[in-house]
C-alpha cells in the first residue's frame, strides 16, 4: 500500500509539473506582454512592405529615432507587398496587428470598416503629431470620412515609365498633352523599328484605367463600388486584346515569366504605366536608362492624374498611441530621416524633409521634376475614393485582364467575371 501511494504522489507531481510547463508556454505564446517593461521603456512594433534596400534605410532612420526617444524601442519586420498584406490581415484578425505600419490608400476603408485603424486625430490635438509643413494636397490622401487614418510619408503619381534607349532608337518623343491615338501609334512605330513591344500591358492596370475613366468624367471606384459600366470595360479590353495580338503590347506569357521583375526592366517592353517612384526600382533591376513621360490624354490636356501616397498608420488596438504618434511624427518630419530615405517611398511628403534632401542622381531628380511639372500643368485632381475591397478588386482586374489577353477567356466572360469578383470583394 505504501509504495502505491508514493507512486500516485509522484504521478500527481509529474502531472502538475507538466501542466505548469504547458501553461508557461501558453502564457508566453499568447503575448501577455503589452510592450511596457518595468523601467518604463516601451516597445512598439513597426511593419512595412519593401525590399532589402528599403529595410536598410528604415533601420538607419529608426536608430535616429531611438537616440532621440531612448525610452521607446522599435521592433521591425518586413515582407514583399502581397505577403505583407496576407500576414497583416491574419494578424489584424487575431487582434494582434503591428502598432504602426506602412499603408496605402486602397486599404484605408477596408481596415477602417473592420475597426483596425487608429484615428490619429486625438494624437494630433494632443500635440504628439503635427500635420504642419506638408506639401500641398498630400495630407488629404490619408483622410477618410473626416478621420486621419494615415500620415503620408511620400507622394507619388501615375506616370509612363519609358525605356529611353528604345524610345530614342524608334525616334518617338512623348510630349505633354499627347493623345491615346498618338500613344498607340507610337507603340506601333516602336515595334516596327525595334521589334520590342511598345507597352507591357496597360489594359490590366487598375490605376491607369482609373486615369482614362477620369479623363472621361468617370472613375474606377465610387465610395462603395465600381464607377463604370460593363460596356466601358468591354471596349477597353477588346482594344487591349487586339493590341497584344498585333504585337505592340507585350504578350502576357512573357509578362508571367518575367515576374517578379517588370517586363520593362527585363527588356520585353518599351514602356509601362506605373507609379513615378518605381523608376528607382527599374533602374536598379534593368540595364537600360529609364525616364518618365506624360500620361496620354483624351482631350489634349487632362491627364486625370492625382497625388497618391504611401503612409504610416497606427493600430486601433495599440497600447501606446502616444508613442506611435511620436514615431510617425519623427519619421515624416525629421530632416535627417528625409535625407536617408530619399524618394524610395515617393517624393518626401513634408517640406521639412523635401527641402533637406537634394537628389544627386539623374533618376531621382527626374522624378522630382516630373511631379513639379505635373503640378504646374494644373492637371492634378482629387484622388479617386477607394471602397473597402479595392485591393482585391485591383488584383482581380490584373489577373482577369491577363487571362483575357492570353485568349483563354472571351472578353465578355472576363468582364462579367471581374464585375462579379469585385462585387464580392466590396461586400466582404
Amino acid at each position, binding site marked *: 500500500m505504501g509504495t502505491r501511494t508514493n507512486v500516485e504522489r509522484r504521478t500527481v507531481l509529474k502531472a502538475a509539473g507538466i501542466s505548469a510547463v504547458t501553461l508557461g508556454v501558453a502564457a508566453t505564446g499568447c503575448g501577455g506582454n503589452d510592450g511596457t517593461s518595468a523601467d518604463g521603456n516601451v516597445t512598439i512594433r513597426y511593419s512595412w512592405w519593401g525590399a532589402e534596400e528599403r529595410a536598410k534605410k528604415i533601420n538607419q532612420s529608426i536608430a535616429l529615432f531611438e537616440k532621440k526617444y531612448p525610452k521607446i524601442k522599435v521592433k521591425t519586420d518586413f515582407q514583399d507587398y502581397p505577403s505583407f498584406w496576407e500576414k497583416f*490581415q491574419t494578424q489584424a484578425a487575431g487582434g494582434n496587428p503591428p502598432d504602426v505600419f506602412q499603408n496605402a490608400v486602397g486599404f484605408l476603408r477596408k481596415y477602417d470598416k473592420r475597426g483596425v485603424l487608429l484615428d490619429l486625430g486625438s494624437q494630433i490635438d494632443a500635440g504628439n503629431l503635427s500635420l504642419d509643413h506638408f506639401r500641398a494636397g498630400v495630407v488629404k490622401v490619408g483622410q477618410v470620412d473626416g478621420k486621419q487614418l494615415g500620415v503620408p510619408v511620400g507622394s507619388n503619381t501615375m506616370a509612363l515609365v519609358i525605356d529611353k534607349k528604345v524610345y530614342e532608337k524608334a525616334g518617338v518623343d512623348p510630349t505633354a498633352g499627347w493623345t491615346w491615338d498618338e500613344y498607340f501609334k507610337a507603340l506601333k512605330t516602336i515595334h516596327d523599328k525595334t521589334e520590342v513591344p511598345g507597352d507591357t500591358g496597360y489594359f490590366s492596370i487598375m490605376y491607369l484605367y482609373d486615369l482614362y475613366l477620369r479623363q472621361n468624367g468617370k472613375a474606377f471606384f465610387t465610395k462603395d463600388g465600381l464607377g463604370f459600366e460593363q460596356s466601358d470595360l468591354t471596349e477597353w479590353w477588346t482594344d487591349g486584346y487586339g493590341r497584344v495580338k498585333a504585337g505592340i503590347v507585350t504578350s502576357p506569357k512573357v509578362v508571367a515569366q518575367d515576374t*517578379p521583375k517588370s517586363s520593362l526592366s527585363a527588356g520585353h517592353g518599351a514602356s509601362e504605366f506605373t507609379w513615378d517612384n518605381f523608376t528607382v526600382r527599374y533602374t536598379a533591376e534593368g540595364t537600360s536608362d529609364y525616364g518618365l513621360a506624360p500620361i496620354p490624354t483624351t482631350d489634349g490636356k487632362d491627364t486625370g492624374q492625382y497625388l497618391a501616397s504611401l503612409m504610416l498608420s497606427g493600430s486601433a488596438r495599440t497600447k501606446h498611441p502616444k508613442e506611435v504618434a511620436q514615431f510617425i511624427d519623427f519619421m515624416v518630419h525629421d530632416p535627417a530621416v528625409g535625407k536617408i530615405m530619399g524618394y524610395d517611398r515617393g517624393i518626401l511628403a513634408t517640406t521639412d524633409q523635401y527641402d533637406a534632401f537634394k537628389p544627386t542622381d539623374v533618376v531621382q531628380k527626374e522624378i522630382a521634376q516630373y511631379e513639379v511639372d505635373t503640378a504646374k500643368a494644373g492637371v492634378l485632381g482629387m484622388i479617386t475614393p477607394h471602397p473597402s475591397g479595392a485591393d482585391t478588386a485591383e488584383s482581380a482586374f490584373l489577373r482577369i485582364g491577363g487571362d483575357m489577353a492570353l485568349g483563354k477567356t472571351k472578353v465578355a466572360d472576363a468582364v462579367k*467575371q471581374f464585375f462579379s469578383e469585385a462585387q464580392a470583394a466590396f461586400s466582404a
Partner: protein
Amino acid sequence: MGTAVTLVDDAPPDTRQTRSATPAAKKRRGRRENLAGYLFMSPWIAGFLLLTAGPMVASLYFAFTDYNLFNSPKWIGFDNFTRMFDDPRWQKSVEVTAKYVVIGTPLKLLLALGVAMLLAQSRRGQALYRAAFYAPSLIGASVSIGFVWRTLFSDGAVVDRTQSLFGSHVGGWVGDPDWILYSLVALTVWQFGAPMVIFLAGLKQVPRELYEAAAMDGAGPFRRFWNITLPMISPVLFFNVLLETIHSFQIFGSAYVVSNSQCGPADATLVYTCYLYQQGFKNAQMGFASAMAWMLLLAVALVTAVLFWSQKKWVHYEEDAR
C-alpha cells in the same frame, strides 16, 4: 490509447504481484498504468486536440457561415457549398486538380515500378543508384526546387532550348497556360523515389522459385511480369496508388512556387488548395474556404472508398492464395 491497454494486458504475468493480488488490486494497478500512459501521451493528445481536432471542428462550423475573419460568423446553411458550383474559378480548380492527379499519379507509379525492377537485380553500385533515385523525393517538396523548376522551364532555359532542337518552340512552359501544368506533372514524376523504395521492398518479397518454375514452363519475361510479379506485389501497388492519389489531391507548394504565387497564368495551375488559399487568406472568405476544405476531404474520402472497393478485384493477399 488502445496501445496502452494492450501493453498491460499482453505483459507477461508478474509473479510477485499476481501471487497476492486480488482482482480489485489488479484493476487499480491497470488504471494507474493507464494514467501513466495517458501522461506520456499528453503532449501528443494536447497537440491533437488544440492543433488538429479543434481547428477542424471550427472549420466545419465556418463552412456553414459567412465569415471574413473580422465579423462574427453568420450562419448561412449550405450557401457556401451551392456557391461553389456556380463559381467558374472553383470549377476550373477542380478541373486542374483532376487533370494533375489523373496524369501525374500513374506516370509517377509507372516510373517508380520500372526503376524498382531494374534496381531489384543485383548489380555493382546498387546502393548508390538507389540513393540517387531516392534523393529527389527528399528534396523535391522544397521551395528551392520549385524555383529551380521555374527557371528550368522558362523561356530560353534548358527545357525550352532542348525542345527547340526538336523543332517545337513553346517559349517557356511556365508562361504558357497550355503547358505549365505539365511542368508540375514532371516535378511530381521526378520524385518517384518514395514509391520506388516501397516497390523494391515488395519485389524482394516475391519468392524466386515462382520465377524459376515459370521459366521452366516456358513463360517469357512479359508473362512472368503479368502473372507473377504483378499479382504478388499487388498489395504494395495498392498501397502506393492509395498514398500517391491522396497525396496528389493536396498539391500546393509546387503550384504556388512555380507559378510565382499566382497559380496562373490564366488559372492554369489553380489547383484546388491554391484556390482555397486565395479565398481564405487573400480574399478573407474564410467561410467559403472552409467549405472548400471539407469538400476536398469528401472527394478524397470518396476516391479512397472506391479504391478500397476495387481492391477486391485486383489485389491478392497471400492469405487468399492459401
